[in-house]
């Protein structure tokens, strides 16, 4: 099981979710993608992505200056 980091700070919707989609084929079941973002709709977009794609949104952590760190398990 690997943990892969994706820095999406400063990147606006819909690019964070598109980047997650780009990385999805590289992930194997059980891998965790940890995404850092600060777009206002970042958390909502990732939650929608997880629900529609059947992925597990493991955690959402608030960090300083509107940053959020979200872990997705594939």
């Amino acid at each position, binding site marked *: 099981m690997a943990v892969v980091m994706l820095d999406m700070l400063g990147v606006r919707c819909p690019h964070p979710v*598109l980047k997650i*989609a780009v990385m*999805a084929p590289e992930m194997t079941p059980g891998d965790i993608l940890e995404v850092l973002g600060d777009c206002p709709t970042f958390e909502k977009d990732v939650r929608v992505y997880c629900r529609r794609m059947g992925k597990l949104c493991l955690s959402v952590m608030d960090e300083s200056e509107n940053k959020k760190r979200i872990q997705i398990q594939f």
Partner: protein
Amino acid sequence: MGKIISIDPITRLEGHGSLRLVYDDEGRFQDVYLQAPDFKGFEKFCEGRAVEELPALTQKICGVCPTAHHIAGVKALDDLFGVAVPPAARAIRELMHNAFIFEDHLLHFFYLGGADLFLGPDEPMMDRNVFGVIKKLGTDAGARIIDIRKQVRQLHATISGSALYPVCGLPGGVSKAISPEEKAQFQVITQKALAFAEWAVGLFHDRVLEGRHYGSLLARPYMKSDTYYMGLVDADGNVSFYDGTLRIIDPKGDVYASFEAADYLSHLAERVVPYSYMKQLYLKQVGWKGLVDGPGSGIYRVGPLARLNVSSGFDTPLAQTEYERMGAALGGWPVHSTFAYHWARLVEILYAAENMVRLSSLEQLTDSAVRNLPEGMGSSGVGVCEAPRGTLFHHYDADRKGLARGVNLLVATQNNAAGIQLSLSEAARAILAHQTEIDDTSLNVLEMVFRAYDPCMACATH
């Protein structure tokens, strides 16, 4: 050493272009060259960028046709990310695209080509512009033209998120749904657009077809080029701006090829010319045989006249009626006179208006499901649409990180580049071969030849 007469810049077209007329030592006319003097390099500097940025980046090629680039770009991303578009998003994209074509065709019909249609080649130079057109048609007509373009542009801006460069298209759909209030506004505007289009058709019949210039120019031998034609058609063979199958017909009107956008490289090839940054496209399997027409030459044309030539008409009643009227008046399809592009453009204005009325009434237009999320990504995507000036392809190749490895854009005016050069050469030989002094009217007719195509040199060099 002979001399070169340069017309630089040529006017009332999109982008920058020039004409070079070449004479020999004895002062005899030799040839004419249409030049695109700019080089931009979009295909190269887009390499390495995230593919999802490309519909927003590539549309900056042009300040006139960004919507067409945005549509072709997001369709390439749909293909690349392997994601289908929800019905509401498809309707929203198509409504925006039709609004763009309506407004862009009006720009050419009245502002750029209007002086060629409503005034004629021997009017004083200072009147051959949109002010001369308004003087001829009256200020009420001028105000009406300006107002409808403004309203349709506002509709476009509401959907696209920007008055000029759309930001709404995403792989799998669009970023924003249409509210019931916006839909109600759209229905008012599109009805006005349809009423305007019907008025414009009447104006064309009364002022242009009944006038002394148009018929004469239409029938001149140098206006006729027996080429192949290409355009998108829907499942019933009707004109389609947004999507469909690519159809090529031969000069007699028989279907030569029918293919999907992804197969474009099997049918089309590009050639570089030494005098212009605009590459010329030709039919790969027929081959490049020089600036000649006929079934043995790979030169083909696109745009309004080509779309009418390759299709069996329109799926809307008023455009279909005008299509049949035009075909009957010009001896049946296919029509080969370059000057008929203007009439074909007017038929498409009518179609775009009718299509906007239909799309703005669809129940699904206000559906909130406007986007499907991509699940993964492939390595290549091709998008195609009909831009006002003709067929437009965007082809993106991506690496495993989603960065562009290759970008190939086949732009509408490139498809027409060889046809425009052919028309110009034939017209210049016919007009200038027996003249020792070039008069203003002759030069104006030369400009009218290329202007009928509504070329966009800005896009063509990308």
